[in-house]
């Protein structure tokens, strides 16, 4: 940032509308001091000051030659401050903030802020890095934020309820790094993010700042509203918010998310009948969806020959939807083929056949399991049923004959 800003030639200050902040910064521009020094001397957060100068340049109020060089160390510093800003105006619960622990107020605020927002933050925001950051920067950022939030940095301090929060934040940070620190996982994750980062770095930051400004105003307003309310009402309101989320998820056919939101609502307002009704409506579908995706996963695993994983997936499908006949059947089949846990397999197979009658595939496995477990009468019954549906299976017929002989 060694460029030297100058006031634009022929500028008519009376015709230019500036905020007081901009006016102040402009008054410092003397054609001698470098941008770096100006930013430092501004007394503002350096990112803010820098943005304001860029804005001034854009509007033709000041000029300098060349682009703003982005020094690496410099950016890091800016980043920290950028995030440091975020909690300044956040609404804090006075009880939480008042808890007597061995932390100063700023640290408390930082922790509360991260803890409250961490589930909505992207991995990038958690590590305080930009979307475009290189692997090395991400690692450095991870190390830096780890230092801030690793429980060891507060070793054996009296932390009260903050202890659990710090741990949760650190785990969240590790999770972020697990993804961003791995090229493949990072790429996959980037694909899930809603927006692409804009090409112009400063521009990008400005947008972020603007959005934040808006958020901040909104939050401030909400805080003032909320502060007037009692904690019970607050809880109910929060619950209602989750409930509304759930409703809109239902509209979008996002049943898994809907179920999660409604569960959150219920933890805050446990006996609300409206919530319960919605849960009753949503939960089976969410389970179905989960069962479906686990079942598909099972098929994929199976096709790759990873039988154990396949079984686990099917079991999870069954867990989600105990009446998923396909998953029950596949589990039974695989266990039978592995020759393990026949009794368990039988239970599954029986259930599958109960749920879906006259499925020849299902019947065949059931028959085989009965045979294996030496329950001949049942085996005969099932083979007979099977052969009605599939009369051309000679091997089954043979087996049936043998069985009948053995019983006689």
């Amino acid at each position, binding site marked *: 940032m060694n460029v030297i800003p100058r006031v634009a030639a022929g500028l008519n200050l009376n015709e230019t509308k500036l905020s007081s902040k901009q006016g102040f910064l402009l008054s410092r521009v003397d054609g001698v001091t470098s941008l770096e020094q100006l930013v430092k001397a501004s007394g503002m957060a350096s990112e803010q000051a820098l943005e304001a100068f860029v804005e001034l340049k854009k509007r033709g109020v000041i000029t300098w030659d060349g682009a703003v060089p982005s020094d690496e160390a410099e950016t890091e510093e800016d980043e920290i401050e950028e995030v440091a800003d975020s909690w300044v105006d956040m609404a804090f619960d006075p009880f939480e903030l008042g808890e007597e622990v061995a932390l100063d107020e700023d640290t408390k605020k930082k922790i509360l802020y991260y803890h409250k927002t961490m589930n909505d933050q992207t991995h990038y925001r958690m590590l305080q890095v930009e979307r475009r950051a290189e692997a090395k920067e991400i690692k450095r950022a991870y190390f830096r934020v780890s*230092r801030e939030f690793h429980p060891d940095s507060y*070793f054996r301090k009296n932390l009260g309820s903050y202890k659990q929060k710090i741990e949760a934040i650190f*785990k969240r940070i590790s999770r972020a*790094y697990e993804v961003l620190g791995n090229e493949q996982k990072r790429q996959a994750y980037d694909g899930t993010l809603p927006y692409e980062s804009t090409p112009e770095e400063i521009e990008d930051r400005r947008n972020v700042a603007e959005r934040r400004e808006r958020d901040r105003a909104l939050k401030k307003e909400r805080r003032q509203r909320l502060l007037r309310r009692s904690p019970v009402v607050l809880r109910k309101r929060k619950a209602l918010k989750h409930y509304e989320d759930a409703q809109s998820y239902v509209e979008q056919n996002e049943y898994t998310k809907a179920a999660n939101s409604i569960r959150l609502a219920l933890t805050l307002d446990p006996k609300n009948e409206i919530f319960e009704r919605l849960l009753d409506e949503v939960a089976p579908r969410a389970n179905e969806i989960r069962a479906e995706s686990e079942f598909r996963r099972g098929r994929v695993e199976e096709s790759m020959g990873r039988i*154990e994983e396949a079984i686990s997936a099917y*079991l999870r499908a069954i867990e989600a939807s105990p009446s998923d006949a396909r998953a029950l059947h596949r589990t039974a089949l695989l*266990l039978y083929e592995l020759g393990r846990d026949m009794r368990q397999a039988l239970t599954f197979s029986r259930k599958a056949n109960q749920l879906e009658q006259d499925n020849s595939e299902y019947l065949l496995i059931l028959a085989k399991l009965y045979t294996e477990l030496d329950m001949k009468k049942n085996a005969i019954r099932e083979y007979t049923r099977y052969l009605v549906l599939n009369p051309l299976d000679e091997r089954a017929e043979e087996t049936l004959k043998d069985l009948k002989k053995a019983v006689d």
Partner: protein
Amino acid sequence: MGRVLGIDLGTTYSCVAVVEEGSPMVIANKGGYRTTPSMVAITAGNRRLVGHLAKRQAVTNPENTVYGAKRFIGRKWNSELVQDMQKNSAFELVEGPHNDIRINLGEKEYSLPEISAMVLTEMKRVAEDYLGVSCDNVVVTVPAYFNDGQRKATQDAGRISGLDVIRIINEPTAAALAYGFGKKLEKRVAVYDLGGGTFDISILEIGHSVYEVISTAGDTFLGGEDFDRRIVDWVVFSFAKEHNVDLREDPMALQRVRDVAEKSKCELSFQNEVEINLPFLYSAGKNKTLHFQKVLTRTKLEELTVDLIERTIEICDRTLTEAGVLKSDIAEVVLVGGQTRMPKVQLTVQKFFGREPSKNVHPDEVVALGAAIQAYALVAEKSEDEEETLLLDVTPHSLGIMIVGGYFQILIEKNTTVPTSAGHVFTTVKDGQTTVKIMVFQGESKVAADNELLGEFILTGLREAPRGEVEIDITFEISADGIVSVAAQDRETGRQQSIVVTATSGLTEDEIQSMAEENKDHLLAVAQKEQFDKVRSQAESMMGEIEKLLPTVEQVIATAQFSNDALKKAGNLTKRARKAIQRRDFDALTEVFEGLKRTVDTFRGLAARKQTPGG
């Protein structure tokens, strides 16, 4: 919290370090040794010996001398490996009440944590002698590949010794801390740690003073002692071939072979051959004793141990592959552990990594230094310009539970950064079911039973409801020490669910406390004995002087016609003192102590009269 020590509780040697004025240093014991043998012995007189003293008498008292206890700590009695190793031990292993291992010494059975506690107590004493203040807080190291049971047992050892183990850290990680201390590095390093009983490999990313373990693996049954054993086998085999005698049946002879095996192995790191010379090794009948004498070359040793070294390399290879790290990404290889002094080990490692290992660390001391650095990082108030050291370590084993079919479902993958946690939801499968059993395992096998069982937990008092309706959230936590804990909560009511631990091989709380009490009693007895001995030797020297002065004093009294009260009193006092010494009665001895002192003064005064006549 005062000064916190770092203790490397090694299989064969232990070492203690502390950070003084910002720099880490090893503390030598009074004999000048910087490491202490991890040996414990109980003598015929039921005296407890630790360290060099224990090692010195090992040959004459092999059955009551424990070495390499770390190989057994936290292991289950019925594990195959333990049963196997039992055959190689001169001391007697017996089954403990929790499927754990106990060692029979003298008239008592000791648990492994008690044995390690004795070593820890000794290390604490070494530090306190040097620092002159009492030190109650320590960071203790364990092999990275230690599982939960082994870590818990090490913690128990700390508690029994009366120390607060504020953290357990992994040995290779500790080595990396010491290697990078104050260097502002930014690179990836591999730590290859081949000690007396264990092998560990860890890959770390160092960024200034943050140390992130990327991946770690190892073998807790592979170390220098295996190299010794190959030499022992070689000697035993040669001896059998020559004399048709099995040395393994003679514990004393075997202990001599063991000693010489290790010594020869170490010498072969610096020279090309050694002569193994064991005169009068085995007495075969009346007047006949057999000797052993043979040359062992370095090449022969390498031949005997090539597969052991190969095994470490295989583990390195696997670790790198699993971590997705290329050999060329590794900027430095750090060698730790005494066994890495063997030139063949160094060469093989160099060949594998394609670079010469770092020579900047002391293989016997880095681990303790690293532990001290971590201790300091955790508790000390640092000055502004000191960079805070931060460790981001991982769990070496996958953690999971047994599911239907006996399968292992992983909840926390190995090499996950700790502290970490994972949740799992259990649902009732029967109507009105009120308990759920959960079996927790650590390991990598898909079949649960092939992994290490950490514990069985039973959730009790579930509310009665139709099946599938009760959902219990179970949270599995791994702390920064790598230790696992479990908590459960009813999803719907949010009620904390009680958990009963029904199977672990660890000591019970009661046992730990009574062992700690015993240890305290022991230390008190030792302290009292030391004090008694001090008072006794002073009393004895005073009595000696009284006796020497007696003839002179008698003369003076006779000529000056003093009353001979003084003489009578002196006689009385010495008699009482003798009795107290004989009975080892500390109180009685201190009672007469002052009297003796006065008598000496009086006698000196009287004797002086004779030398200055006319006075």
